[in-house]
């Protein structure tokens, strides 16, 4: 996985035209349709992650960690620069955001797995594994709207690891679930690493990420501030942020 000079520009709108009426009025009067200022989330990210590496992205809120993950996942398109990824990729961003409240856990798992690119046969084959890993008992046959947030997170996480990606992107997902589920997640992620999987993790749960990721990248205002051994980077980050 490599990012070269990736820039992501979002626009801060001072005035945003959201109705066609205004669009026409502004066109006729030759006024700008949107008044906006560029707001950079990433200002030139260079990052190379080798196959089998585990990297933690750390940084304060708004430093661009989640945006970086969404760019790598292909959800956002970069404003400038190139992102290259090799192999199947699964992202766990906003756990369970794609679930449909009226469908059961099983149905949602099937849907989610197929959205992640699994074929129908693969979905059928992996479903027992997903159900077993989520381990939410009879709730698996209930509509997701009756789930607690923890149960939703467990199901979403179970789907993501069971699609067996080559690259796994995790955004603040280690903080969910109870102690025993967390233990199983960590165990699963360790196995994923041992099997040669590549992992990029965004988390503020430093104790956990330290265990998973030997390397850390500190993002600061959309730039890589420091890249290296987890302990060294974390110490520098701590020194600045207390």
């Amino acid at each position, binding site marked *: 996985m*490599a990012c070269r000079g990736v820039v992501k520009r*979002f626009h801060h709108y001072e005035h945003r035209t*959201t*109705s*066609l*009426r205004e*669009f026409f009025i502004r066109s006729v009067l030759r006024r700008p349709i949107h008044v906006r200022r560029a707001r950079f989330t990433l200002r030139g990210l260079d990052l190379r992650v*080798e*196959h089998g590496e585990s990297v933690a992205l750390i940084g304060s809120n708004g430093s661009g960690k989640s945006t970086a993950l*969404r760019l790598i*996942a*292909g*959800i*956002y*398109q970069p404003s400038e620069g190139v*992102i*290259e*990824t*090799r*192999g*199947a*990729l*699964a*992202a*766990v*961003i*906003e*756990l369970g*955001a*794609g*679930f*449909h409240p*009226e*469908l059961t856990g099983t*149905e949602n798992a*099937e*849907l*989610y797995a*197929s*959205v*992640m*690119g*699994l*074929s*129908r046969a693969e*979905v059928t084959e992996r479903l027992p594994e997903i159900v077993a890993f989520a381990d939410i008992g009879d709730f698996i046959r209930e509509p997701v709207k009756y789930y607690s947030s923890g149960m939703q997170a467990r199901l979403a996480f179970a789907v993501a690891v069971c699609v067996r*990606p*080559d690259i796994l992107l995790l955004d603040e997902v280690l903080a969910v679930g109870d102690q025993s589920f967390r233990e199983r997640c960590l165990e699963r992620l360790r196995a994923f690493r041992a099997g040669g999987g590549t992992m990029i993790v965004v988390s503020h749960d430093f104790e956990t990420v330290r265990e998973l990721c030997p390397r850390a990248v500190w993002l600061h205002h959309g730039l890589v501030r420091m890249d290296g051994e987890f302990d060294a980077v974390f110490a520098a980050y701590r020194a600045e942020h207390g």
Partner: protein
Amino acid sequence: MAADGVGVIARESPPVRVNAAGRSAPLADVWRYRGMLRSLVVRNLKVKYQRSALGFVWTFLNPLLTVGILAAVFSRVVRIPIPDYWAFLVSGYFTWNFMQQMLSTGTYVIAEHTGLRRSVAFPNEVLVLSAAVSRLVEFAIELAFVLVALVLLHHHGVPASYALVPLLVALQVVLAVGLVLPLATVSVFYSDVQHALPIALMMLFYVSPVFYPTTLVPSAFQAVYYLNPLAGLLTLFHVVLYEGRFPSGALLGGTAAGAAVIFALGYVVFNRYKALFAEVV
């Protein structure tokens, strides 16, 4: 999310970009996501029909009641001089109903899947297609009833022109998707669409040959009339299903060309802006 490149990174080989969202996706890309398409269709139908005792009956009852009212009014009150008026009406009405539902639900399909789009990368086209295929499943069942009714009560036999039905349905789907693609794009950015669409659909109903035949349109207006993309399609259905004749090459070719142009233009608009969809919440 192709599974190629598993194993050690070969640095010499050209890089593989596996991310799908926003990239100008050829049809092959959509084909790779057929599993997702299928799941979305199954989900749409499940969500629509679960916990409703009558299920599909509702879907069928709505156009059926409308057809009943229209048939009563236009064969008894305002007389439209057509033999077996009911047969004329059902041969086009269900296509109109498909178009109307496709436009009024498919248009919001991008906005409805914000959660999914922000957490997983996949080609947005699949969402639009899933709306079309979901409706197509329902339409196919309705059409089967219509064909049987026409064969038994109107033609008293199977006209050879029925061989063209699959082609007409294909045209109908291409046209519907072509119209929905740009509407779905605009509706992501502008909320006006949801206000304007019901009015536009109401007007479209009256300027389309749904309850009257195209032949009643004065000849001076015929050329302009066929600018409505639905005019050609509905007339084709009337000719093939109701009259049981083969359509003229001009009508079939013109309608197909119109559908192709609308699809191409719609897809260009959609492609141009789809990379921005994920950023609008």
